[in-house]
């Protein structure tokens, strides 16, 4: 039973990582950059939802929608102001800009909301506990896993069936060729940031529903782990981010439960190192090939 309990908790934590990892992997795949500010967009999303629930008296669903809207605007603005002017610059310059953006967001949050941790309010997400036999599962766990599945299916359909989604795959594979098809590359990159940031808001709410302590650095560690998950699964690949995120969550929880509570994170990163040694492109990453 403890095993099942841990498995379910791992799946739930992994689902949060997966949703965050999607933002990293989509942006990497399409804009070819690591957006290290992504973790902090999660934190902003969580704060906005917190304000909606605590101060503005919004119903939970509205609060989440407002958080998604704010994060979408934030993500597109960050891309337009900070990253777009560097589109032709060296990737190191973009990386450093992203790290700077991450600290900017953390410190803005510190200014606006203060350093004291806030306790995230209870909502329908984490208000009940389901009992199945000897198992007791929090509703947050179930909702998180379900949200992950819905998002995965929706994104897969979006990228495989819609014109915009296919345009995203084209830009991801060959930006110049995509432009020659008539695809507006800048607009496609903006759209990617919009989707990634909206998902970050959802991830922020889910994260704080399971671990209800909210502070300006809330997004950092999950952000780094989700980035790890994206690399683990094969950065640039949407199913890879899903698989990497879920596996990472399960490994972390099992590591903490059966090996050592302190070493949980170390185990996670050790597994990453082993995977990258054996399969440098990640679990589902595709090695580049060219035919003549």
């Amino acid at each position, binding site marked *: 039973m403890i095993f099942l309990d841990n498995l379910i908790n791992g799946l739930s934590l992994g689902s949060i990582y997966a949703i965050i990892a999607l933002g990293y992997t989509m942006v990497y795949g399409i804009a070819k950059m690591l957006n290290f500010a992504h973790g902090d967009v999660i934190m902003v999303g969580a704060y906005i939802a917190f304000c909606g629930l605590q101060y503005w008296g919004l119903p939970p669903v509205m609060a989440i929608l407002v958080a998604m809207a704010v994060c979408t605007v934030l993500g597109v603005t960050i891309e337009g102001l900070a990253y777009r002017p560097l589109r032709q610059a060296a990737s190191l310059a973009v990386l450093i800009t992203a790290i700077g953006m991450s600290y900017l967001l953390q410190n803005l949050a510190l200014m606006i909301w203060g350093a004291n941790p806030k306790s995230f309010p209870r909502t329908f997400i984490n208000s009940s506990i389901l009992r199945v036999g000897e198992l007791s599962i929090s509703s947050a766990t179930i909702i998180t896993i379900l949200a992950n599945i819905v998002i995965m299916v929706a994104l897969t359909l979006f990228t495989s069936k819609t014109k915009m989604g*296919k345009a995203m*795959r084209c830009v991801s594979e060959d930006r110049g060729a995509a432009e*020659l098809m*008539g*695809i507006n590359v800048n607009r496609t990159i903006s759209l990617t940031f919009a989707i990634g940031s909206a998902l970050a808001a959802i991830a922020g709410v889910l994260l704080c529903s399971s671990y209800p302590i909210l502070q300006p650095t809330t997004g950092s560690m999950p952000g780094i782990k989700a980035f790890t998950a994206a690399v683990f699964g094969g950065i640039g690949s949407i199913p890879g981010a899903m698989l990497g995120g879920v596996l990472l969550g399960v490994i972390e929880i099992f590591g903490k439960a059966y090996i050592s509570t302190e070493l949980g994170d170390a185990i996670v990163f050790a597994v990453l190192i082993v995977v990258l040694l054996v399969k440098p492109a990640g679990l589902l990453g*595709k090695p580049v090939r060219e035919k003549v």
Partner: protein
Amino acid sequence: MSDIRSGAPLLKVNDIHVYYGAIHAIKGISLEVYDNEIVTLIGANGAGKSTTLNTIAGLLHPRQGTVELNGANMNGVSASKMVSRGLSLCPEGRRIFQQMTVRENLEMGAYSRPVTEIDASLEDVFQRFPRLKEREKQIAGTLSGGEQQMLAMARALMSHPRLLMLDEPSMGLAPILVEQIFDIISELHEGGVTILLVEQNAQMALQVADRAYVMETGLITMQGPAEELLHNDAVQKAYLGS
């Protein structure tokens, strides 16, 4: 060849200068393409042929000079907008979307057109390239080199261009496939497609083209009817290996 060159040119390149940073790659070239012509741009590696095509397509921007399509100045028009103005570039190295299916590649070629017109264009293209029809659902990266080149050309045709630009379509292909590709170019021409062709295989290019320009280190050094250049001593020495 003056009989087919009536009226204003479809494409007019006016004294363009293109730089890569500090490198002056194109040093003032002018060329014209008229409706229903095949014009070829030949020259050695590094002469600036691809740079010229990429500039016309809007991927690069001239620091000086103009590109006019159908009489309208195209300076500052982005590559993605050039497609709906009737220009299509089939780039060097094919650049097909390897992870997408053949059909998806073709659909992306028609990205700028209304969805309702795509099916008819697909039919057209499949008729011209029956091999692609057979491989419709296959992932493009698994096609052979020749098939990939056909796909790249078919994809460029899906936007219904008024001017099709082909950059080294024969590159890296076996001689028999090179023949096939040039047969297709001739067929397209007979079907009324206007083509600007960049080639290192000068022999083949001059045989299918109406007119030709010879480029050397960023400049046009010779121009004239393809037939004439094919028998020109200097061209033969430099590019035809005789």
